[in-house]
């Protein structure tokens, strides 16, 4: 499998709030994103997950290290890396289909062609009947699906998802996990997905990276195959309640919890 995005020895420092020193948000992070991978980053608040995503998206320039997209240095955001945000970040002055085709409009693609592409992706996320709806009449889950369709319509090689399900209720969240996995299976994108939920991370990831704060770094990495069981059985609850899943969940939880406890003891 070929490498799509490669990060080597990424370091990121922000000036601290009191202005005297600096905060190390990322410390020597190296990771390769391979073709068709679903990489999930998990960790407590402040562990640098979002900083890492912003570096890959090109919104932040790292203070040290190198980020390459198929061998070429990444210098800023681009439509080869689509982003789905926690807050949907859709444009309320456009309806669903106009939001979805917006990326292609920016790239001056003809009206017919971009409409077709937008409709195809709205179909993929199950919003075919809602293309003329205004954004503010949709539920939170539907808004996130538009956000996903919008990112897909630019046909990026990589999808960056910054806690896209963080603001949803528990039921919608589980449905959306399955929807995102199915979209991933059909579109074969590389996905980098951030979450706070251990269960979500284990369920969706082909590779899980656990990060820890101060300084933000990758402490553990797992290859996972629970998603495959879901594709085979179609029963997400059965996967999530299987003994192997629960055992894994406890193991990852103890890592994160252990770090938090360890930090409080000098």
């Amino acid at each position, binding site marked *: 499998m070929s490498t799509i995005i490669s990060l080597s020895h990424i370091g990121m420092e922000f000036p601290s709030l009191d202005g005297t020193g600096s905060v190390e948000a990322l410390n020597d992070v190296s990771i390769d994103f391979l073709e068709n991978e679903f990489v999930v980053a998990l960790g407590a608040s402040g562990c640098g997950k979002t900083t890492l995503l912003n570096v890959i998206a090109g919104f932040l320039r790292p203070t040290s290290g190198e980020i390459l997209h198929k061998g070429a240095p990444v210098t800023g*955001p681009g439509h080869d890396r689509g982003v789905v*945000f926690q807050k949907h*970040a859709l444009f309320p002055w456009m309806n669903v289909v106009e939001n979805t085709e917006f*990326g292609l409009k920016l790239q001056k693609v003809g009206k017919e062609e971009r409409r077709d592409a937008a409709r195809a992706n709205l179909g993929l996320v199950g919003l075919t009947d809602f293309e003329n709806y205004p954004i*503010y009449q949709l539920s939170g889950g539907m808004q996130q699906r538009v956000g996903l369709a919008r*990112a897909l319509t630019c046909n990026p090689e990589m999808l960056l998802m910054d806690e896209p399900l963080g603001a949803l209720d528990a039921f919608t969240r589980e449905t959306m996990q399955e929807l995102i996995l199915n979209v991933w299976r059909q579109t074969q994108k590389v996905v980098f997905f951030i979450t706070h939920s251990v269960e979500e991370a284990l369920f969706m990831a082909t590779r899980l990276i656990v990060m820890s704060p101060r300084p933000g770094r990758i402490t553990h990495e797992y290859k996972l195959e629970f998603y495959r069981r879901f594709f085979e059985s179609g029963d997400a609850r059965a996967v999530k309640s299987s003994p192997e899943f629960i055992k894994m969940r406890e193991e990852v939880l103890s890592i994160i919890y252990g770090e938090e406890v360890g930090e409080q003891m000098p």
Partner: protein
Amino acid sequence: MRLNPFSRRTSKVVDQYGAPGSGDATIINIVTIVVILGSWWLVTHLELIRPLFLPSPEQVISKFNKIACTAHYYESFLTFLGIMSEVEAECEGFSEHALHQHILWSLYRVFLSFFLAVITAVPIGIAMGMNRIARGVFDPPIEFYRPIPPLAYLPLTIIWFGIGESGKIFLIYLACFAPIAINARAGVRSVSIEQIHAAYSMGATRQQVVWQVVIKAALPEILTGMRVAIAFGWTTLVAAEMVAAKAGIGVMVLNAARFLATDIVFLGIVVIGAVAFVFDLMMRKIEKALVPWKGKV
């Protein structure tokens, strides 16, 4: 029961318990208006106050008919239909102009100034929101003149522009400019950083972000600024027309006061209020049509 404004019932089921000011006030509004008009009618008919100070409602209405030339235009209409052969009623008006001419002159001044303010203040306000240098340049003059009442610099506009139309237009223009510029500037900030990031990650150029994201996101606040501006411009108009205007609703009121024609003063005030109300209604309709998402995201 529901129609009784003095009902002792607590909130309806759909209302939030304890929500301040909940419930419909339309009926109470109507009662208030009826009480005010009724007391006006009563005190003038009981002759408690001399007509010089408070003319009766009928007096104001008959003055309206006279100044608006109601009979003249009604007869002209009948002549047009062929029902009457000749227009007999004359059009007197006031200060050599009929009411609608006064109103049209005032509307012309306000809308011309407002239009000039919109085409200059919107780009400047957006530039101030987007750009450090533009903000540095325009912030001091705008923040300096904004709180000054237009009446205070009215004498200066007379010295600069004389007593013609341009001075009046300039005065109203200044009144409209600040609220639009300040709201446009604030509107730029209502775009979220995620929306800008989303546009960039879909391959937008900086120009595309400004034109297709920032300005669109600022639209609700620009329209709020315009709504404030047109009300403020209308308020300033009466002051502007006090300087040697031949026609205009403001000058009509002023001349009437000189002749102690209190009924015309009343009439003028009602017309000024009605036009302001129509402006606000109009701006609200425009807002609803152009920015239906306002307040919903």
